[in-house]
């Protein structure tokens, strides 16, 4: 078990690793929506998820799917820190023919359950996995899936959402990285999604709304799903800041998909190491 301080330090370290990874790849990366999820990944891989890097196909592992597939930076960093991806392999990110590209490519050895990148697919697969786990009486494993708020524009998300509640999948937890920005700008001006909490609630989910940068709150919300009497799937609406932790990236959509120069990289590191 990691202490609160350990988790805080892990998140801090992950942000630095994330920037280094993006910088060394020498090209544009999805930085903003990566940085908004650092605490989510810290909570998941630092505390909540059950996994074994020595036995990546372990039947009782929790299944994790990054439906918001472009958010690979904190994912790969988390898999590295969790022991799935070596330092050497991590730095193949976006090299020719690497297993680690701008979106997850299914590879259980590396801890990657599914291929994503096209939005609106992950929750459906998570529903199928949750159903399958119940069918084989695997009551230990849970299924976690991270979506973006922009991704919730996709109709297939709501097909999947409806079915998860219909099938009473209390072994399924969705997390929405609600950073209020998407590729073209502000989410509410591009496609106003209304009150996300109300939407998920009306689709039959148990909803927890929280500060997506509060690691303890995230851990409590994610773990609560396994012990409560609820027969509903649970969604954690994680209110986050796109670009979190680097002042010039925060809420600045120029950093949705962008490259770090030597100067901006050093500026960002200086802030994080402060």
């Amino acid at each position, binding site marked *: 078990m990691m202490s609160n301080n350990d988790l805080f330090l892990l998140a801090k370290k992950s942000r630095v690793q994330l920037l280094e990874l993006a910088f060394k790849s020498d090209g544009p990366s999805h930085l903003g929506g990566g940085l908004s999820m650092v605490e989510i990944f810290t909570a998941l891989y630092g505390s909540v998820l059950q996994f074994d890097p020595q036995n990546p196909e372990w039947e009782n592992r929790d299944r994790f799917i990054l439906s918001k597939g472009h958010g690979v930076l904190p994912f790969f960093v988390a898999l590295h820190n969790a022991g799935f991806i070596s330092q050497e392999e991590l730095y193949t990110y976006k090299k020719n023919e690497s297993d680690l590209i701008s979106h997850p490519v299914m590879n259980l050895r590396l801890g990657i359950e599914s291929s994503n990148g096209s939005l609106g*697919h992950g929750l459906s697969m998570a529903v*199928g*996995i*949750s159903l*399958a786990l119940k069918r084989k009486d695997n009551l230990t494993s849970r299924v976690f899936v991270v979506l973006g708020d922009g991704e919730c524009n996709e109709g297939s998300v709501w097909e999947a959402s409806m079915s998860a509640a219909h099938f009473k999948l209390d072994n399924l937890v969705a997390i929405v990285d609600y950073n209020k920005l998407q590729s073209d700008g502000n989410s509410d001006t591009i496609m106003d999604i209304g009150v996300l909490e109300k939407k998920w609630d009306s689709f039959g989910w148990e909803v927890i709304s929280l500060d997506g940068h509060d690691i303890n709150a995230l851990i409590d919300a994610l773990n609560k799903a396994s012990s409560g009497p609820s027969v509903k799937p649970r969604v954690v609406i994680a209110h986050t800041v796109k670009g979190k932790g680097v002042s010039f990236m925060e809420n600045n959509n120029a950093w949705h998909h962008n490259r770090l120069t030597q100067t901006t990289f050093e500026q960002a590191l200086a802030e994080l190491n402060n």
Partner: protein
Amino acid sequence: MSMKITGKENKQWSRLGARATYGQAILMLAEQVDNLMVLSADLGNSSGLDRFKSSYPDKFLNIGIAEQNMIGVAAGLAKEGNIIFASSFAPFISMRAAEQVRMNMGYMKLNIKAVAIGSGVSMAFLGNSHFGLEDAAIMRSIPNMTVVNPADCAEIVKTVFAAAKYPHPMYIRLTGAVGFPVVYEDDYEFEIGKAIEIRQGSDVSIVATGSMVYESMEAAKILQDLGLSVSVLNIHTIKPIDTDALDILIKKDKPIFTIEEHSITGGLGSAVAEYVSSIPNSPTVNRIGLPDEFVITAEYRYILEKYGLVGTQIANSIQLKLNIKQ
């Protein structure tokens, strides 16, 4: 798991038609396969699955009218070791859910059998919104996909059983309606990817798939009476196409005619032409199928006749083509 067919059974299935036979096959399969899961997007009854639903409620999932989610859910179930058959009408499963098929079945190679009920023009008065005119073309273009179009009801049963043993993603395209004519009176060897020569001949080579195998046999008989010796190859598996069988036809060096209940764009005819044209000095490939347009709405047989897809018309087309050439 195994399945032997008899002529008597096949006649019964023929009366039931393609869809109901699919349901029967699934029902028989469920007796032998524990990890079978059958999915439908609110078309369980239309897919002939009524009895299956009541006999094996724990193996059936209705996903509601949500084909994209159906394929995604199928992917999750398949990933955890289940054998999945998911069905809907051809355009809904091959086009509405095309990208889910591409990601989950193509890219991730998950073991899902996507079954298109009522493909081709067998949906008759339901019209073009429900026809499978382009589905084989679309599914065939996705890497890792296998595409099968059974020739009669016995072959639908054979396909379902073979598919359950075949650990790869697959698109099964059901043409033919109630009273689907019998091609196979007796049991026969069926292997995914392996074409079957069901008639030998030396003057003309017909390559057919699905409902057009029977019509091609009828055409061959007519042409026989006119002194033309016609071979008929049942290519149930459109992808991967059996190039060994095509090599034999190329060596014969006689005109090849492809016949399919599908647009002439991108289906069997295209698949055959793609291969044959890559071989130097190969015979001509003449594609017979539905035109590249939205077709008329009418009774099934009427539509086939409108586009020259019944035996007598196929015989006429072949004759005409050969006469023009001479």
